[in-house]
């Protein structure tokens, strides 16, 4: 996939350049871990580029946290190699790996105040007291926690605790930062603000970061690249845009974004779905096989009569209209009975324009039409 084509995300290269001396590549080969006969990591090969923000995304049980724990050293794999730059660390104890980790429930020491928590890694590294005070204060400033040093942990809000945990993870300038669903305990608004803040922090520090989440939107927002995990294997690794636009497999398409799927019949090089011919620029129709059409709700449009040039069009009937403030969700059933969802931006005055029961014509631009081969896990 084309990384350079992504204009929204210049950070990956600049961040790496800014923190060259800190940014380490991680190279993982054949990493495996099984509990009894059940493999949780099934021969993982993964390269994290220097200074990259890589997100491990997957449903629960896909092995994403296990993989992070193996990188951190809390979990001993059965076999495999983990290299930070050119040093092998797979047998190294966690405390010797120089990793800054942010835990899901913060793991702040309740018997220490904020400054002692943040200064903890420095004290243990025998940094002089004056320098500890200076660096702790600088780290707290960075997270808008200046003057909070003497507060007890139970006097802080969830968001503040999260910031203390982040400050503690970066204060000793670790070679790599690992985060295990660090924002999952925060409410939606705070979470979205912290996502941006974490992203900015990463751009400033340029430290190689591996982030675990099961929240696809979070992964899309923050990452340079996303690795989608499925049953202990990496199903797909690419930039957020590439993964979203061309998921490559049904599993990835289902996991990232909300999509409707249509069964496609292929005969004599022509694809048909829900009674209509489908043209796609991406996948040359495999002869005499079935495949699946992915319909992203925001790429679908309601068509007026006469519209539809350069589009694949389907006939159907509206079953429900849901108003969500910024968007209008339109649920429809196509002629073959497949349910489809269309997302539209709302405008004033469009209330009541569409009613359940009405016939409707739905179109998707040919350029946006993505076909997936039906073989599970097969990438285009």
């Amino acid at each position, binding site marked *: 996939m084309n990384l350079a084509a992504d204009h929204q995300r210049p950070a990956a290269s600049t961040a790496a350049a800014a923190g060259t001396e800190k940014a380490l*590549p991680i*190279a993982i*080969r*054949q990493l*495996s871990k099984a509990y009894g006969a059940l493999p949780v990591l099934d021969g993982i*090969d993964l*390269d994290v580029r220097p200074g990259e923000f890589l997100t491990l995304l997957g449903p629960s049980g896909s092995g994403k946290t296990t993989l992070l724990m193996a990188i951190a050293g809390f979990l*001993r*794999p*059965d*076999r*495999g*190699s983990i*290299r930070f730059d050119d040093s*092998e660390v*797979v*047998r190294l104890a966690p405390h010797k790996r120089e990793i800054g980790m942010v835990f899901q429930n913060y793991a702040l020491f309740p018997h220490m105040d904020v400054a002692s928590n943040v200064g903890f890694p420095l004290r243990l590294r025998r940094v002089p007291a004056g320098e500890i005070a200076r660096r702790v204060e600088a780290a707290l400033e960075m997270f808008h926690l200046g003057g909070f040093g003497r507060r007890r942990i139970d006097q802080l809000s969830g968001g503040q605790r999260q910031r203390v945990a982040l400050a503690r993870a970066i204060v000793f300038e670790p070679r790599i930062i690992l985060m295990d669903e660090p924002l999952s305990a925060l409410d939606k608004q705070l979470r979205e603000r912290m996502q941006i803040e974490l992203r900015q922090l990463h751009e400033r520090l340029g430290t190689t970061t591996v982030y675990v989440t099961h929240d696809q939107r979070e992964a899309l927002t923050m990452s340079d690249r996303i690795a989608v995990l499925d049953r202990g294997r990496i199903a797909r690794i690419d930039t957020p845009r590439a993964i979203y636009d061309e998921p490559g497999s049904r599993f990835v398409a289902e996991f990232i974004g909300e999509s409707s799927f249509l069964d496609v019949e292929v005969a004599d090089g022509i694809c048909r779905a829900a009674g209509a011919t489908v043209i796609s620029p991406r996948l040359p129709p495999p002869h005499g096989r079935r495949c699946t059409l992915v319909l992203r709700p925001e790429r679908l449009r309601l068509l007026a009569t006469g519209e539809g040039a350069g589009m694949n069009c389907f006939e159907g009937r509206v079953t429900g209209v849901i108003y969500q403030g910024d968007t209008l969700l339109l649920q429809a059933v196509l002629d073959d009975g497949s349910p489809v969802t269309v997302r539209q931006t709302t405008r004033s005055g469009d209330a009541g324009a569409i009613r359940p029961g009405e016939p409707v014509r739905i179109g998707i631009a040919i350029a946006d039409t993505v076909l997936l081969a039906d073989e599970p896990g097969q990438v285009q």
Partner: protein
Amino acid sequence: MTAGSIHAAAGPAGDFHAAALRRDHWRERLGLAGLAAPALLLVAVTMLLPVGWLFSLSFLDDGGALSLANYRRMLAEPSYTRTFVTTFEISLATTAICILLGYPLAYFLVFTVTSTRWRNLLYMSVVVPLWVSYLLRAYTWKIILGTDGALNSLLVSTGIVSAPLDIFLYNQTAMVITLVYIFVPFMVMPLFTVLDNIPRRLIEASEDLGVGPFMTFWKEIVPLSLGGVIAGSTMTFCLAFGDFVAPVLAGGPDGTMVANLLQTQFGAALNWPLGSALATLVLVIVLVLLQISSRLDTAGRVELT
């Protein structure tokens, strides 16, 4: 970076450190076992060895030859079986009374006393007697129930009876009273914990669903606190079953319990093999009870999170 350069350094056999990682795993296990070894050794020396020795002793006859003579004699002698039955009855009565007294108390502490300070104070007042010497606590009832004890003084001074009575002490009732007094904290403690862990939401939900207070108690609180009842009953029963101070202090001629038999065989009668056989039987009974109780407990257990 290519995969090839990594592969080259993966290990001599190209096994991706599998052997080394396995070695690390076992080394860590061994280290942990080493740390636990002193404790395990202590248990082996102070518990397993003596019990094993006692057990083997029970199979020796008077001449020191292997035989089942002790067990045969134990079953043939009616006074022994009678003592076992008596002990069983007394322990059962003690346990039942402990439930009847302990459950309302624990319930009251958890659901009625709303102030944390008062609750802790009252709870401590149940537990604190455990810190007083066991012998002293057993003696207390000898003093209260005795011929010139507190109860008789009260009865005489109020004119209910003209002369002190000797019917209170030295019988099975006095023994049960003493045992209940000594062991009731062991019933209250698990009950308190279990009741305290019942989420108040469940009670609210039950009432919201139209169930009255009594049925809420019967259908919600009782099943959820059953684990505590079982744990408390097991402790109380086993402790009462092995007690020998209460029978000596408060028991009469018909109040001999199994522990007193043991004491006699190992002490006055100096018949260690027979004593060992009796002790083995007691151990088997207690182990069976523990097994039953743990089965019952897991059967009704619900994860409350």
